[in-house]
């Protein structure tokens, strides 16, 4: 009997839906192209026309290859969803790097891919040269990538391009977003976009007005406001100027970005619950509790540590430099108001270690943030407490432990184990990154700082990330950013799929 699986080989399903996602990004390139057109930036306009056409052609070819599978999303399996999500990210990295490369501001295509992956994964590390002289069109593209990357490219494609939603949930989960705000996954994707667009309008306006108040010209203040909002909300860390947040020299501008990167690091489910009037969720949710406890502890410890070294002169400076960076690290944003080298030269080992821990913990699950996520930290911590309580209570007593995350959940061993495994995977990436950094001659603490920054998709740098760093380190960082953002499963599925395909290819001649 012929099943649907036989009828539609995996490659066709993957090809058709990956083509859709690529088409979505090709349409997205219209925004920087129009920006360049309006501002008479002719070279960037041509760069985007070329890049957009390459994406359109590839997207249509992939859709054409998988044409037979159209309107049969219902037959999509989990493996397809995971492979589509992870493969789309790889292909989009190459496609989105084209306008970067054509701009002439990157030293190599590898550097361009690094910056794109850094944007997509909302990391925020930069290898683009002479950022202060790049076009507004390219800046629009950089920040748009980080904004879309935060919500997820697949979420974008699901919202606007897919008609059917039967198997869409599997692609959606493949992009490390598993929350169901409404029963329909397309509806959930659209709600995520509605929340983000509402904040985009509020945030850009707030930063625009603030920008004019601190001395920026109205048009320039608008673009700075838009870019800095996209960067803050997506916990991205990009900025239109090389100095990042230090360019503005403004306390009020820093405070506005703090508000939006904290909001961006919270779970979309939490935003939706509050939007629906369930304000108690903010206090009851295990993730927000975990986030606020670890943030408070990290801030206090970092302030005490740096006060001991007399690094900053007063409380205002301590807030603007220490608390700002701890919050930026913990929410995995990566916006900064100090020079990268100041961490290494002035912060001392203790301050750097606190930042490393904060970067690894990260923000909330199903948000724009990276890191282990507060939810997993909370679950593992509660699991530990539960084990201790079980040890101390009578064997005959059956104890049931619960935690609250949007709704009440029973804390079982499977959940604790799953959370622990993901944390171990993150720690493995961090450990390998640190070892690789030390292999290339960087001091161990600096190597650990940079490894934590890429593992947590943060973007703060201690000075290692530069165009001159070894190519192997760049490639490793790209892989880590990618794995960490997609939370491993999808990428493992893609690797498994490729290995499986190669095995089949090798076995076929032997069988014949």
């Amino acid at each position: 009997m012929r099943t649907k699986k036989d009828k539609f080989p995996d490659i066709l399903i993957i090809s058709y839906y990956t083509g859709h996602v690529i088409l979505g990004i090709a349409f997205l390139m219209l925004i920087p192209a129009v920006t360049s057109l309006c501002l008479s930036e002719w070279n960037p306009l041509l760069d985007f026309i070329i890049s957009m056409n390459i994406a359109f052609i590839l997207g249509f070819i992939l859709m054409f290859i998988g044409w037979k599978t159209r309107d049969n999303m219902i037959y999509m399996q989990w493996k397809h969803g995971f492979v589509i999500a992870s493969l789309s990210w790889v292909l989009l990295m190459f496609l989105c790097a084209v306008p970067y490369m054509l701009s002439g501001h990157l030293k190599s295509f590898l550097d361009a891919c690094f910056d794109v992956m850094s944007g997509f994964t909302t990391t925020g590390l930069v290898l683009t040269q002479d950022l202060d002289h790049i076009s507004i069109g390219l800046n629009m593209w950089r920040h748009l990538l980080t904004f879309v990357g935060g919500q997820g490219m697949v979420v974008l494609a699901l919202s606007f391009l897919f008609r059917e939603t039967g198997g869409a949930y599997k692609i959606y989960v493949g992009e490390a977003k598993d929350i169901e705000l409404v029963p329909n996954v397309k509806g959930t994707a659209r709600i995520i976009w509605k929340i983000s667009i509402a904040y985009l309008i509020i945030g850009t306006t707030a930063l625009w007005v603030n920008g004019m108040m601190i001395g920026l010209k109205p048009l320039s203040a608008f673009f700075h406001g838009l870019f800095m909002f996209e960067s803050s909300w997506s916990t991205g860390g990009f900025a239109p100027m090389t100095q990042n947040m230090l360019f503005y020299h403004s306390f009020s501008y820093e405070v506005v970005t703090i508000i939006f990167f904290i909001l961006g690091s919270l779970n979309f489910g939490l935003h939706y619950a509050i939007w629906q009037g369930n304000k108690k969720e903010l206090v009851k949710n295990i993730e927000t509790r975990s986030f606020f406890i670890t943030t408070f502890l990290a801030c206090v410890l970092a302030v005490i540590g740096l006060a001991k070294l007399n690094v900053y002169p007063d409380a205002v400076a301590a807030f603007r430099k220490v608390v700002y960076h701890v919050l930026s690290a913990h929410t995995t944003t990566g916006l900064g108001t100090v020079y990268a080298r100041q961490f290494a030269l002035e912060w001392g080992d203790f301050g750097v270690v606190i930042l490393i821990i904060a970067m690894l913990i990260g923000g909330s699950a199903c948000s724009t943030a990276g890191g282990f996520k507060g939810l997993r930290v909370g679950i593992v911590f509660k699991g530990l407490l539960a084990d201790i309580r079980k040890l101390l209570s009578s064997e005959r007593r059956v104890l049931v432990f619960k935690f609250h995350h949007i709704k009440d959940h029973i804390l079982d061993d499977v959940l604790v184990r799953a959370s622990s495994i993901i944390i171990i995977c993150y720690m493995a990436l961090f450990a390998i990154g640190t070892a690789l950094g030390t292999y290339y001659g960087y001091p161990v603490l600096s190597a650990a700082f940079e490894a934590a920054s890429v593992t947590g998709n943060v973007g703060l740098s201690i000075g290692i990330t530069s165009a001159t760093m070894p190519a192997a380190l760049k490639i490793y960082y790209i892989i880590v950013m990618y794995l960490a953002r997609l939370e491993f499963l999808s990428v493992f599925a893609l690797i498994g799929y490729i290995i499986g395909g190669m095995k089949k290819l090798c076995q076929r001649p032997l069988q014949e």
Partner: protein
Amino acid sequence: MSKTFAGIILILAIAIFCPAIGYAQEIIPLNELVENGKAFDGKNVAVRGEALGEAMERGEYAWVNISDPTNIMGVWMKKEDAEKIAFFGDYKHKGDIIKVSGAFHRACAEHGGDMDIHGIAVEIAEQGHPVKEEVETRKIVVGVVLTLITLCVAGFYYKIKQ
């Protein structure tokens, strides 16, 4: 004769004991200030770099960020000094190169711990200018050809679809 001798002695004394008067103040690369913040903290320094972005006026003063080949730093200067700058570096402009003498702060108490320079003397060392954008013909040709291919592929796809 004795007047000439006294003159030579005076010039030598100035050159030896007052180097700041005898010579122009040495330009320090911005990255050297970042790398040796504690050593330079509170000292008068001279730096030189391209004015970037725009001046951000704050009352009687303004922030101007300057860039040299090694790094970028904010300079807090009088509004009148900032107004002397005609071009700021961006995509369409090469900014004025300015020379600033002033006090360097590793963590400025007045500005929330920013590493900055409070400019005392600001002068324009080199005038900036608009950058003429040259569009490559090759890019135009590639763009047109790719657009035509896209239209064909899209047309073919939608024809099959219907």
